[in-house]
């Protein structure tokens, strides 16, 4: 009964939030570490109830951006508004409405899940009387109600991730910053976390999700902000990013024997994207060429054992926009990624 009324209060809170301005507004954000530019003219917005993905290779500036948004770092230039509170002057007010779920598990291992929530609840400024219900709600949301009184050190990795999220959402934040919240967790925990994040967003929280998981971003995020070398290289929906990259759909074809090199001669609408023995990835510009393609494949390579049509994905766009070269974290910034 109490939980129901508590959930209703949360819903009301988020209804109010929904009427307010954007959860996050960032403009002209710059941050340098010595001679290295971590962020350069970064601009992004996250509206209430929106989940925005913050993507980028290591060292792109995601963690720096999140740290600035989380009031842990001061920017060199630019403006940051968190639920209307301008940083860094209103950092304390911003913290009242800010929830951070850091990439690393930030919990006390020798406290129970409930004790962690109670402690962080007090640190978040919640009233003592409100904390038990808030904690129970958060625990239910992340599916830890039954294990709430176990020590965190006895939790699995997935449970810790979920509790980590529960701490971040305990005080019903209007702005939720998630830094790879599902890194290294089992599929069940990942699913639970995704559900919880979606619930929060539906309730009106503005969520900025930093992740390397393209599938996760594709599933959860309404918009994507792609950072590379401290700059926003693309932003928009997944479709926008994919289409803006000009990536065509591809056909994966595998035959029983390697076809000869000239087996596609004369088919100008078909290009070989990659070929490896019996497997070839092809770009088919004209769908009408498909019957001819299949006939030639059967003739040149024997039986067609696999035929798959791949639509362009966010990962494709990501690689297209950021390249496939390895990015080593140079460690110049705090948790640079």
């Amino acid at each position, binding site marked *: 009964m109490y939980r129901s009324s508590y959930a209703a209060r949360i819903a009301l809170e988020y209804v109010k939030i929904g009427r307010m301005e954007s959860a996050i507004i960032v403009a002209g954000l710059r941050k340098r570490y010595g001679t290295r530019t971590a962020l350069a003219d970064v601009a992004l917005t996250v509206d209430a109830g929106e989940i925005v993905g913050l993507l980028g290779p290591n060292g792109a500036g995601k963690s720096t951006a999140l740290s600035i948004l989380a009031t*842990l770092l001061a920017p060199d230039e630019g403006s940051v508004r968190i639920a209307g509170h301008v940083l860094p002057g209103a950092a304390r007010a911003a913290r*009242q409405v800010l929830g951070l779920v850091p990439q690393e598990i930030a919990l*006390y291992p020798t406290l129970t899940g409930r004790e962690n929530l109670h*402690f962080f609840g007090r640190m978040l*400024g919640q009233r003592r009387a409100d904390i038990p219900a808030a904690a129970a709600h958060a625990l239910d949301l992340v599916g830890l109600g039954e294990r709430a009184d176990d*020590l965190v050190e006895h939790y699995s990795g997935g449970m810790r991730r979920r509790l980590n999220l529960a701490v971040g959402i305990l005080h019903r934040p209007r702005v939720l910053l998630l830094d790879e919240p599902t890194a290294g967790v089992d599929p069940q925990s990942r699913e639970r976390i995704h559900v919880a994040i979606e619930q929060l967003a539906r309730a009106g929280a503005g969520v900025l999700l930093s992740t390397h998981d393209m599938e996760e971003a594709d599933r959860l995020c309404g918009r994507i902000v792609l950072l590379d070398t401290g700059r926003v290289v693309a932003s928009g929906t997944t479709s926008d990013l994919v289409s803006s990259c000009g990536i065509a759909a591809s056909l994966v074809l595998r035959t029983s024997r390697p076809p000869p090199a000239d087996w596609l001669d004369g088919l100008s609408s078909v290009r070989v994207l990659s070929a490896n023995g019996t497997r070839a990835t092809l770009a088919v510009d004209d769908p009408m060429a498909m019957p001819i393609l299949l006939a030639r494949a059967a003739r040149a390579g024997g039986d067609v054992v696999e035929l798959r049509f791949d639509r362009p994905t966010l990962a494709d766009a990501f690689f297209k926009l950021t390249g496939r070269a390895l990015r080593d974290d140079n460690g110049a910034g705090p948790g640079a990624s």
Partner: protein
Amino acid sequence: MLAALRAALGKDLRLLLRDRVGLIFLTVAPLIVITVAGFSLASLYGASARGETAYVLPVADEDGGRVGRAIRERLATEELVQLLPVANREEASAIVRRKEAGVALVIPAGTSHALAAGRAMELQLLTDPVKYLEVANVRALVQELRHGIERKAHERAARRLERLRARMLATRADFQRAADSVARELDALPARLAEAQTEVADRARAAEAGAAREVRAAVKEASELRLAVVSTRLASELVPLRRFVGEIESTEAAFRSWMRSLRRQAGRYADRIPPPPELPTIPFAVSELMQLDSDALIARLMGKDAMPAPRFTLPRIPTVSAPPLPTLTLPSLPELPNVRLPGALDLVETSVTGAPTRLNTFDQNVPGFSVTFLLLGMLLGVSLGLLDERDWGTLARLRTMPTPFAVTLIAKLLARFIVGVVQMVVLLAAGWMLFGISLGPEPWALLLPTAGIVFAGTAFGLVVAGLANSREAVLPLGSIAIVTMAAVGGCWWPIDLEPRWMQRVALAFPTTWAMAAYNDLMIRREGIAAAWRPTAVLLAYGLGYLMLGLALFRRRALRAR
């Protein structure tokens, strides 16, 4: 804010209580180290720790006399040593060579006799020079014991001498009294001689008179005896006469009776009868002679003095004149010399504070190692605690929360402060219960330096946390600092063992002031007044460390941004 502080404090205390290794480090580990150090370093203080660390002292009593017995009995009561009687010096030497003892004592044969005869003797210590501390302590003990025995012998001799002197004085007094008496007697002798002469004369006269009386009595008796004989003879001589006179008188009576009968018979003729012849009359003298008894007769015959006393002259008893008395001059006794044995120079040790002069090694070690572990606990609790929070990610998370980070920091320091005070109280109480340490006349006064050193240690932990960036840096940095502070500050050994310059350097460390206060309260048994100044200094150190630590921490936080 206070609610957040309480929550943070509760969290830190809860974290600590669930850290079993940490709890062991805070309590059990110090107790183990205190126990080991206490027993190991007991000899450093020249005192036993409840007798468990007594030196094994082989004693070869080759004397077997009174002195040897006294030494053995005395050593048997010493807590510092565990007496091990052995047969001879060879056996004692072998024990020292086997390193089973650092020193052995040999009481040479004849020691008792020699000392009794006034000759010097030497006790012998067989020593292992490596165990110099043991040797020094046992040597001091034996010296003390030897001195005690000498003092007792000295006291006995002095008592004997005093008794002898007293007897001599009494004898001298007796002699003097006798001499005085003789002198008085001599003085009185002429008078007494004169008196005796008078008495002799009187007695001579009396004797003469007596002799005269006796002579006269004898003469009288002889006279009377003679008279009696005469009387008897006279009476016997007079018997026929008296018989004849009687017969005459009876005849006369019979004649007269006849006459009267004749006349009666003659009747008328009686006239005719002629008168008979008159009978002669008995002369009066005869008649008187007849009537008188012999004595009277003798008296009549011999007159009044029937036997006149013989006249005689007894020889005079010559008087003897006393010979001239010699003049007796008694020699005067010389004054007894005031002979005394030289007094013994004794040593009485008195603690100026009234505390016992012997130190319980744990009185030093319990607070010393407690402070050491307290500082280590503070170092780990504050520095590593903050590093833990950083590693756990909670530090960054807390910084994103509305509660000021200072609250988190203060709560952590406060938790460590509370834990530190409890740790010290537990360790001191354990020391009191397990090792019998003194808590001083006012045990609660120990809370003052405890609070001071805990505060300083807590703040020092913050300094180390501000200086060191990693766990790997905290341990060497903090350990070096704490080990130095503990060692120089007198936590591990009495600070007085250190050279003067180091003692002056030690004033720069809070440990020095804490140990000074603990030593004053626990060992010197002083009151709370002794703790105020060290506590104030400790609090000042704590404030200084706190400000430095906060500055360092702030600088690091700013760098991190």
